[in-house]
């Protein structure tokens, strides 16, 4: 079948013609990879290795070189933190810096209505868009000045990633010792009975306030709910204990870690405290 002559070449035809032109141009007027491009590549690679070695040296000599204490922190952080301890009573759930933006997204989308957006929704959409980019932007033009939409989108993406990373980096986890000093205020504001006090102390020191806020104390991470008035929901002590032992069994898919290692007695104290927290009403 004879091809129907076209009025105008299609976009694909144009792209193919451009690529053929590119190949011919490079062949005729390009320069050989070795030594020209390879020279620059080599300088850059040496620079990269030097940067990596320098970081390692700064890390060592400011952190633990002179001290021989594995927990001493230098300019770039310590050698290691305390050994992992599932039964710990305080911790800072903090990933490596390039995940800060993901972590901070979770502070924006609060549990439970929209947390799915923060954990999986937005990152997945962003990733799909990134993969699809060549098919979303199919014009042939490559000059940045002729691609205003792409450039504005890129700048907005960079700014939001930067802001999220910065916010994630500077987000302060309240210290257990500071939170504990707040307990007398909780007793007043919430009319806590004396029986709830051991639970309150545990709550302040077991790391709950890394994620939850209570009476204005603590930081909200991962979209964990404010627990000031958790008692008004009358979930009951057994349910509270079950949730603390295995959050996923009460709230499917909960990112809250299990606190089963605290042991039944302390879990009961916590549950009593939670149930007694009626938000002052």
């Amino acid at each position, binding site marked *: 079948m004879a091809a129907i002559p076209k009025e105008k070449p299609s976009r694909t035809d144009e792209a193919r013609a451009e690529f053929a032109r590119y190949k011919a141009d490079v062949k005729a007027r390009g320069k050989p990879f070795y030594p020209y491009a390879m020279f620059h590549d080599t300088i850059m690679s040496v620079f990269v290795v030097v940067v990596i070695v320098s970081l390692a040296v700064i890390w060592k000599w400011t952190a633990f070189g002179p001290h021989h204490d594995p927990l001493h922190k230098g300019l770039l952080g310590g050698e290691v933190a305390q050994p992992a301890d599932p039964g710990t009573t305080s911790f800072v759930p903090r990933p490596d810096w390039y*995940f800060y933006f993901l972590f901070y997204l979770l502070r924006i989308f609060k549990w439970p209505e929209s947390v799915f957006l923060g954990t999986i929704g937005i990152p997945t959409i962003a990733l799909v868009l990134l993969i699809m980019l060549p098919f979303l932007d199919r014009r042939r033009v490559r000059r940045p000045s002729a691609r205003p939409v792409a450039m504005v989108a890129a700048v907005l993406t960079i700014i939001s990633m930067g802001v999220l990373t910065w916010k994630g980096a500077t987000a302060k986890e309240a210290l257990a010792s500071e939170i504990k000093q707040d307990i007398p205020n909780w007793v007043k504001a919430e009319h806590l009975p004396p029986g709830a006090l051991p639970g309150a102390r545990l709550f302040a020191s077991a790391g709950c306030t890394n994620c939850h806020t209570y009476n204005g104390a603590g930081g909200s991470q991962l979209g964990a709910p404010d627990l000031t008035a958790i008692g008004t929901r009358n979930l009951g002590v057994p349910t509270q204990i079950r949730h603390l032992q295995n959050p*996923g069994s009460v709230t499917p898919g909960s990112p809250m870690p299990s606190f089963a290692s605290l042991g039944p007695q302390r879990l009961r104290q916590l549950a009593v405290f939670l149930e007694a927290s009626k938000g002052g009403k």
Partner: protein
Amino acid sequence: MATTYRRTPTKAELRRQRMEELINFPLDWVEERSGLVGGVRYFLFRNVPSDINWMQTLGSAALTAFLVQAITGVILAMYYDPSASTDPHTGKPVAWESIVNITDHLTMGWLVRGMHKWGASVFIILMFLHMGRVFLFGAYKYPRELNWIIGVLILVMGMMEGFTGYLLPWDQTAYWASVVGINLNGTAPFLGPWLAQFLRGGQEISGETLTRFYSLHMLVIPGAIIALITLHLYLVIRLGVTSPPWSKDAAGMEPEEAEADGRRAGLTRPVPRPAGASAMQAEPGGRE
């Protein structure tokens, strides 16, 4: 490589000829049986656009950072012990102790671990910068769409490498970051809970999780990254790299576009283009 002489070769010439053959023998041997020498020669002496710039070294910089990770990682794997069980003498987890041992007692261990730890960040940054340069140049357009997609997959794999490696020292920050990270994976619909269960190797994060992360971190993901990088570089060599789009002399520019630009009209582009001009030939017409 036999040279033909019109006269009888002198002794010295014969000796030189024999030396040349001897030196070339291994290369010729390999070339005859594999064609690899020709491949390397093509790789080295293929032409690239004459106007490529420094931003285009970021890809090979990322490759260098990856190689640093691979080499230091292999050394670390010789001394690291991925066990969460407690050392009966010290009461500390074995994995944590092996990390402290590498950093404090192994000769140059601090350097190897330090380079691996900080190289990871450098690698991630370089991947992002390289991606930014590809975006700026519009180099993801036809016919390089596939290479962009491969690039995104490498980026994702690289971040997964960071996530799995972070747990290995088995210290508090690592442990709790992984607890939360895995739980977050668990919030995904359908596959989420299954994925979380798989990563943990059970209901709770434990020694089982550590060995799983270790195997992912040093076998599965690096294997995938190496395969993807190989594909990536194959496509880079096959398709060639783009000229900077603002270049006055970009390879592949339309002839009208080129002529409209007064500065280069009649200067650089010989019309008609010399067909199949030699790669090493000097560039025509008074450029640089």
